[in-house]
């Protein structure tokens, strides 16, 4: 998966650049450079223009030197660990777009299409069933993870897990049990607080990444309010870190 990260430019200009150059990679618009700062010690400049980061299948980031031979070696080392959802399954042309969505993590659009296709004619239906088997492995894995979180007392994490299942597997047999488990977890005061705190954190992050100077004090206010109102939450810990780095 290739992703470009544009630093310091407004979205409208990035769109113009992509159109002008017919550049088709997904581009993250990092106008405030906050994302760049999470990975780089120094800003991109004319003397320092080649910057790349590889994220491995384990979700860990590794510095990458963007020279073809060096990059190839780094990717070759990671490839044995990489896994596609539909490895070993013949994906029919009619389900290619849905499969691509799923491989790119756009589960909400891809997964329901594959489940529906099981009911199609013989050839497509059979192919869809093979794909559904793989998706069931994904759902089972997520359910197991949710139960582990619950058993460990990590109720908010479990709430998130069940929410993913209910959303990604909408319209399938996995949706209702997951939604019910999620509703049950939401009765917990700690989960309610974490949800509210995470919403405030998301609001502050959006303000900080807007690139507008006027939004920075508003973001600081939201972060301070979050920490005061929900001090025992994970969001409060992150808010504290963000507030320090935004100073």
């Amino acid at each position, binding site marked *: *998966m290739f*992703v*470009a*990260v*544009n*630093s*310091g*430019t*407004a*979205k409208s200009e*990035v769109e113009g*650049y*992509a159109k002008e150059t017919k*550049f088709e*990679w*997904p*581009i*993250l*618009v*990092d106008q405030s450079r*906050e*994302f760049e700062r*999470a*990975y*780089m*010690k120094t800003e*991109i*400049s*004319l003397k*320092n*223009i*080649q*910057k*790349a*980061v*590889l*994220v491995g*299948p384990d*979700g*860990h*980031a*590794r*510095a*990458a*030197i*963007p*020279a*073809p031979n*060096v*990059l190839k070696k780094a990717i070759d080392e*990671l*490839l044995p660990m*990489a*896994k*596609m959802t539909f490895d070993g399954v013949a994906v029919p042309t009619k389900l290619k777009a849905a499969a691509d969505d799923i*491989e790119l*993590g*756009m589960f909400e659009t891809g997964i329901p299409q594959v489940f529906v296709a099981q009911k199609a004619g013989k050839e497509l239906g059979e192919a869809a069933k093979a794909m559904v088997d793989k998706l069931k492995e994904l759902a089972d894995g997520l359910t197991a993870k949710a139960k582990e979180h619950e058993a460990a007392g990590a109720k908010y994490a479990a709430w998130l897990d069940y929410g993913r299942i209910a959303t990604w597997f909408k319209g399938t047999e996995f949706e209702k049990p997951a939604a019910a488990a999620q509703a049950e977890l939401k009765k917990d005061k700690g989960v309610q607080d974490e949800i509210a705190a995470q919403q405030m954190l998301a609001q502050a992050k959006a303000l900080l*990444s807007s*690139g507008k100077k006027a939004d920075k004090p508003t973001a600081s206010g939201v972060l301070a309010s979050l920490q005061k109102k929900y001090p025992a939450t994970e969001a409060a810990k992150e808010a504290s870190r963000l507030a320090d780095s935004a100073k």
Partner: protein
Amino acid sequence: MKRIVLAFTLLIAAAAPAAPQDQVATEFNGAGWVNSPALSLERLRGKIVLMYFYEET
């Protein structure tokens, strides 16, 4: 005139980047996406993602 500081050439070797080695990747966070719906590193777990940072001046 606007100049693209970085064209997506991978032909030029550079000094070692400053990204920390082997840290848990920070989730995508920005002012939006071009050419794609919003992507998520968490959802791309299991895949290899190459992030290429560039700037226009």
